[in-house]
Structures are given as structure tokens and as C-alpha cells.
């Protein structure tokens, strides 16, 4: 088993803390807000208001469950369009009240369901990207576990994108990559290495800016270690970002994504 595949397995561990644990540990007075105001409340997506170092912020995260029952109600962390519309609603609310937005990502991808398609999964993700691009308040995204496909980038289109040491981020799962391109799911470990899905790979090509370390004994055994480091980093970064003029923040955000592409002409 290769290094990337080992990280992939760790990123998916059920015992790994998910968004709510990060939110409860890092922020004060989390006040959860529900619903997308259109159709329903998607339990795969959580969000609300909280404070960090006395600064009010909007926090949003994809929540995987820690039990079968919780996982069923939260669709194993695969949001429906309502989840993404909740993100849009909370982002726009944050903009109105000038709160920075912190997003936690932990998903294998947006939910591939019948209702999800009927209610515009593609449109919901597209609109998330569109709203993020022009949002007049800082946005920091953190990959805390799995980060798969369009359902992940919908929440990683802001000013900073960070990743935990054993997080991952990919255009599709290595299993999907191997079975679609090579017609051989057993080559998923090889695919994981080739695809460059780890934090170490992604910091090199600028997809992420920072790697948040995890403890040697495993994050499931000592989550406080990572929570503390992340909290300090967030306090520092929020202060940097919220002191930038909004035009500069937006043009730097545009440039952040504008640079991606490898071509010649």
C-alpha cells in the first residue's frame, strides 16, 4: 500500500472528527442555523454563527456521522442541493453582517440521488462557486478529511484553502479513476499515487496554502492537538484577511483560481 493510499484510508476513518467536532472545539457559542429557505434542512450540511477570539464568524461544514444511524441521516456527508443552498444562504448572511466565513469540508462528493438531480445539484454547486467568487467577506476553507469532486470545490473557492495532514482532495475517488480510466478498480492504490491527492502534493501546485499537522498517535486519539493548532492559525489568518481592502481581497481571490491550468500555445 502506497503513501497516498494510506492517507486516503486515514481521511475516511469513521472515528476521525468531522465538522461539528471542529466547530465545537475551536469556536465559542456556536449557534446552529438550519435550512435553505427553499425546500428542507440538509443534515449533511451544518452551519451557523460562532465566535473565535471574540470575532463573530459564520461557520459551515459537511458533517459525516460517527454511527450508522447518524450516517444515514447525514447521507455519509454527501450533501443534496439543499446543503449547497444552505451554504449560499449562510455566506450571503455573513457578507451582510461582515462576518468572515470558515468552511469545513469532509465529503466523498455531492449526493448522486434522484431528488438531488430533480432539484438541481449542478445548479446549486455552480451557484456556490459563483457566490463565493464575489463574496465581500473573507472565506477560509479547510479540508479535514475526504474532499471529493464538485461537491468539495463548491466550498473551497475562497481566499485560503488549508488541509489537515491526512486530508485528501481529488477530482474523483481513486477507485472511480481506476475503474473508469483503466477499467480496473483493483488499481486504486496506484491511482491514488498518480492523482496527487495528498496535502503534500497539493501545497506544491498551489491548490492549498497550508497543512495543519495531526498528532503522531492519530487524530482520533488526540484531536485537541490539531484543534489547537488550527485555532491559532485561524485567528492569525482572519486578522490578516479582514484587514485587507475588499477590492484587494476579491482580486487576489480571483487570481488565486485564475492561475490554474497547464497548457502551451
Amino acid at each position, binding site marked *: 500500500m502506497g503513501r497516498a493510499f494510506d492517507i486516503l484510508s486515514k481521511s475516511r476513518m469513521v472515528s476521525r472528527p468531522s465538522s461539528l467536532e471542529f466547530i465545537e472545539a475551536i469556536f465559542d457559542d456556536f449557534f446552529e442555523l438550519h435550512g435553505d429557505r427553499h425546500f428542507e434542512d440538509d443534515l449533511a450540511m451544518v452551519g451557523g454563527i460562532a465566535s473565535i477570539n471574540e470575532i463573530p464568524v459564520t461557520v459551515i461544514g459537511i458533517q459525516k456521522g460517527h454511527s450508522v444511524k447518524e450516517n444515514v441521516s447525514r447521507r455519509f456527508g454527501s450533501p443534496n442541493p439543499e446543503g449547497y443552498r444552505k451554504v449560499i444562504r449562510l455566506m450571503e448572511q455573513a457578507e451582510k453582517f461582515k462576518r468572515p466565513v470558515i468552511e469545513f469540508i469532509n465529503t466523498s462528493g455531492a449526493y448522486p440521488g434522484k431528488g438531488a438531480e430533480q432539484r438541481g445539484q449542478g445548479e446549486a454547486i455552480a451557484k456556490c462557486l459563483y457566490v463565493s467568487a464575489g463574496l465581500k467577506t473573507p472565506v477560509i476553507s479547510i479540508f479535514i478529511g475526504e474532499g471529493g469532486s464538485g461537491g468539495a470545490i463548491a466550498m473551497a473557492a475562497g481566499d485560503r484553502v488549508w488541509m489537515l495532514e491526512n486530508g485528501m482532495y481529488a*477530482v474523483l475517488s481513486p477507485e472511480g479513476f481506476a475503474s473508469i480510466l483503466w477499467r480496473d478498480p483493483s488499481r486504486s492504490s496506484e491511482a491514488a499515487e498518480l492523482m496527487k491527492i495528498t496535502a503534500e502534493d497539493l501545497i506544491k501546485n498551489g491548490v492549498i496554502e497550508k497543512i495543519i499537522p495531526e498528532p503522531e498517535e492519530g487524530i482520533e486519539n488526540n484531536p485537541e492537538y490539531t484543534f489547537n493548532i488550527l485555532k491559532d492559525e485561524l485567528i492569525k489568518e482572519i486578522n490578516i484577511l479582514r484587514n485587507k481592502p475588499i477590492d484587494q481581497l476579491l482580486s487576489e481571490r480571483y487570481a488565486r483560481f485564475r492561475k490554474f491550468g497547464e497548457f502551451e500555445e
Partner: protein
Amino acid sequence: MKLFKKKNYIPIGRNIPRSNTAEKSAKPEMGVDEPIIPDGMWVKCRHCGGLVYKKEMDEFEICPKCGGHFRISAKNRIKITCDEGTFEEFDADMVSKNPIGYPDYDKLIQKMQQKTEIKEAVVTGMCKINGYKTVIAVMDSNFMMASMGSVVGEKITRAIERATQMDLPIIIFTASGGARMQEGIISLMQMAKTSAAVRKHSDKGLLYVSVMTDPTTGGVSASFANLGDIILAEPKAIIGFAGRRVIEGTINEKLPDDFQSAEFQLKHGFVDKIVNRKDIKEALSVILKFHSKKEAAFNGQGF
């Protein structure tokens, strides 16, 4: 991102095409469709199953038996959409590098270039439509199912940026199987890049018309395709985010035939109008006309 159900048109006489070996080796790699209309051949209509002699079809490439729309190349789309002689291409020579070192990616691209006679899966430029000047981008599903990698993302983004700079509308004919998996995460980044470009164009008060053609799926459906001020679609085009088989596997249920069709999207509120290919140029020029006046009816200071 995901694969599309293999389409049902089967070109007859597979021994004739010029790049026979290229197609053979490209097929298992990509899992994409065969070229739609090989030169001078019979083609099977995926809508009615009927065999159609290519020469029986007019420039619109519509099935004479059932009216079903065949997938059309970017070159032919431009021919039936832009006023004659007005199309000026942008970035015609841009080609992809190999960001993750995917084995033989360069060879795969070369084969596609030979097959389609274009360098990548989108053609962009400036043109006039019934006299109205506009930027236009046309995706070509013959080229690796028009999956979006570095070049597709960059050319679309530049086209939108040029429209923004020149205060012009942009029209994008979308078609795509999703992200270009062979480019890894960089292909996913194109979703954010193109959507941000649309946002800037829109913030300047400019018009974007998205015309969804068969198939518009995956990362393209979850970015610029769904961000048009006005969204048109061709009849029976497959439009959706996740692949049908993935959904069926997840919910353990067979989906109805019309699932993710243009008609399904119209019913659910995600498409403004379904327009027959023969009428698209006229529809676009009507829309362009509505948005061509510099003075809006309401100027913010009362009528």
C-alpha cells in the same frame, strides 16, 4: 467525473475511417462515444434507432425520421450559428500539458486532434449573429467527450474575460462529460476559475446565454453551464450532474427514460426554453436584440 451511459449510435462500416487505430485505442481509455458522423456513412439515430444516411441530413444534423438532434461538431455549429465570414477564432493553438504525468496523455490528445481536426474540446471566438456582435464558445463532444481540463477551462475563461473587457455578451454552447480526469485536481480547479469569470462578466451588467447541448454533465453542469442569465437547451439533450448509472447504483432503482433530459430540466425549472437547433440562431438574435440597447429602460433615477 463520471461516465455517461454509452450512447446508442453505432457508426456502420467501422473499417473505413482514416484514424481507425487511434479510435480503437482511445475508446477503452476514455469510455467515450464513437465519432458521430464519420464521413459518408450511415449513422444510427439514438433517438429513434433508425439508420440515417449522412447525406440525407442537412447542415443542422437532425434526424429526418424523428427530428432527433445528432451531436454536432464545433465547426459545424459555428457555421449554422454565426453570420458568414464573421467568426474570428481566439486561442486556436492552445494545447494541454500533462499535469499529473498521466501515461500517454499526450498521445491521446494527439489522436483526438487528428480525429477532430481541432486542438482541444472547445472553440472560442468573436462573431456576429444576425448582425449582433458577441463572443461565442462552442464545446465539441467529439474531442474526449468535451471533458474540461486546463485548455477548456482557460479558453472559456479567456473568452468570458474578453467579453467583459469589450462589453460584449457571451454565448456558450455547452457539452461535456465532466472534468478531464487525466489532468487530476487541476481539471477540478477550472470549475472555480470559469465561474469566477462569469461572475465578473455578470457584475458588469453583461449578458451570458448558455445553450445546453447533449450531453451537459458533471463539472461543466456544476459550473458555467448553469450560470447563464438565460439558459436554452436542445431537445432531448442529456443534462445533469451525476451519471445515471451512479445514481441507479446509489438508490438501487431504475430511473425513467426521460431522467436528466432537457425536458426534465425544463419541468424542474432549470432551463428557460427548449429550442430546436434550426431555431437557435433566431432565438439568440432575439435575446441579443433585447440586450443590445445601451440605455436601459430603468436608469436608476426614475423613468
